[in-house]
């Protein structure tokens, strides 16, 4: 069953088409990879999906509901939450308080929110940082915190924007395991990533964007053997 349908979404900034006529469908319980060179419009697409920008044209349908024009908070309450390429920790709050802010989307009781937040911190393995200030965490842990906070809002669809960016191989591996764990629990995910090896491993399907347009879509194998993708993005070495 399709949980998210992107129907001919375009986003113009003045004369510039950051996304033009992008369409695809994300099936429930799967991981959809979103790749493309810098400036291809991946983050813009995330912004259009999660309500930060209204799409200039086209429709975003989530769980059968048209999302165009809804604000990000409403989008979150309906079950779609994103993380940020440039992490946005609530720096002066502790790690647990950060995740509690997410959990409070579903409860008004601080006690209950704390329990929910602790669960998510265990999922991302940050239990040992509970009382640390979020602003003092190293980048790898900030990325995990970002995921935990998003998970705490109990989404149906999680959108991860370059959650492995800037991490060392060991940290990336942890995140890959985390993403697979989350999938194992039945949560649908959409992942922007630059690391081809990682995205090949985790994605069920991949959409490739270049200069705002969808170049192709398919299983990881189909995508890496597609000549257009090799020309536009991967270069010879991946062929």
């Amino acid at each position, binding site marked *: 069953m399709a949980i998210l349908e992107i129907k001919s979404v375009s986003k113009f900034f003045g004369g510039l088409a950051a996304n033009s006529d992008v369409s695809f469908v994300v099936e429930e319980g799967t991981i959809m990879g979103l790749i493309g060179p810098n400036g291809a419009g991946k983050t813009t697409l995330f912004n259009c999906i999660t309500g930060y920008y209204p799409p200039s044209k086209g429709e975003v349908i989530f769980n059968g509901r048209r999302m165009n024009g809804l*604000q990000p908070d409403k989008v979150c309450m309906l079950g779609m939450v994103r993380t940020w390429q440039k992490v946005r*920790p*609530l720096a002066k709050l502790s790690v647990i308080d950060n995740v509690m802010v997410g959990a409070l*989307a579903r409860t008004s009781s601080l006690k209950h929110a704390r329990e929910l937040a602790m669960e998510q911190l265990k999922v991302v393995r940050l239990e040992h940082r509970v009382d*640390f*200030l979020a602003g003092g965490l190293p980048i790898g842990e900030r990325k995990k915190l970002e995921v935990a906070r*998003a998970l705490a809002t109990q989404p149906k669809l999680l959108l991860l924007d370059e959650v492995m960016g800037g991490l060392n191989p060991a940290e990336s591996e942890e995140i890959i395991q985390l993403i697979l764990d989350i999938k194992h629990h039945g949560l649908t995910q959409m992942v922007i990533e630059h690391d081809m090896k990682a995205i090949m491993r985790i994605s069920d399907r991949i959409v490739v964007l270049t200069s705002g347009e969808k170049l192709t879509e398919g299983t990881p194998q189909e995508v890496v053997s597609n000549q257009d993708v090799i020309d536009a993005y991967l270069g010879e070495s991946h062929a």
Partner: protein
Amino acid sequence: MYKTLIKASLGLIFLAALLVIPRYVESPYALHMMILLFLSVSQGQSWNILGGYAGQYSVGHAAYFGVGAYTTMMLMYSRQVVPWVGVWVGVAIVIVVALVIGSICFRLRGPYFVLASIAVAEIMRLSAINLTTLTNGAEGILATEIPAFKIGERVITDFLTKVPFYYIGLFLALFTIAITYWVQHSKLGYYFQAIREDQDAAHSLGIHITVYKNIGLVISAVLTSLAGAFYGIYVGFVDPPTVLGLDVSVQIMLICIIGGMGTIWGPVLGSLLLVPLSEALRSNMITEGLVKIGLVSADSRIGLFLKENLSHAHVLLYGILVVLVILFMPEGLMGFIKKMAPRRNREAV
């Protein structure tokens, strides 16, 4: 466990001491100082909720202070409405004013919000000067005769001494502290702080930014208007510069910035520093002190200069104080004290 018990009993002892002070202290000046302190705490605490927790630096809180003060005084002066009724009319008006201001100003972020908040307070001040039929204009409203407060036939107080004001002020200060405590320990406080730390991140986590900013503003404005009403009744006089001037807004902020924003005890510490300082300056205590310890002689040119000018210099000294705080304690006195405490939870190593 022991710690909380000790803390709680210390708090109770302190509170009991505050309650019995008027029984043993007869000096009106000492009571006056305490009342100013309570007023300052409640002003700082009100601003703290919007500025300290939600991170919306309003430099226009004089608007709410002034509306609270003016409404209560105008009703008492021209309609003979007793202040303890008039104050709630003020609160109602302030809620409306705050929502109007919020719906306009919260479209703006950061420094633009600050500028808009200043503009709004200035509009209020100019209105008070010019709507002479309503506000008596620049002359202000003088209303010192407060009717006795009765329950049934029994007179509770006739407001002839400072003692009833002491208790009202104490109650107001405790009330604002309690509200701040409640905010910090509720969903509201978490959402305010999330907005302060990162508005976009907060938005993505299901927080309706405008709604929560307006809630913060309304709580803050209502508490500020209560402080304003209290000020008006206590002093018995309001005019545009004393309750609606820009320096009122700045003073309200400073209490909180110097004490420590976004903490429960910051505004209390800020008041403990600022109120005595401004009183000492106003009454020329500092010059007298310098003369007494022999640093300057009263008849020398420096002595005369200080005597002449220091009492007008409290704004200058506030400025210096703010610079010092920003340079050396960017998180206010409260942050400074916390930093001195064992460095738990500071940074991940």
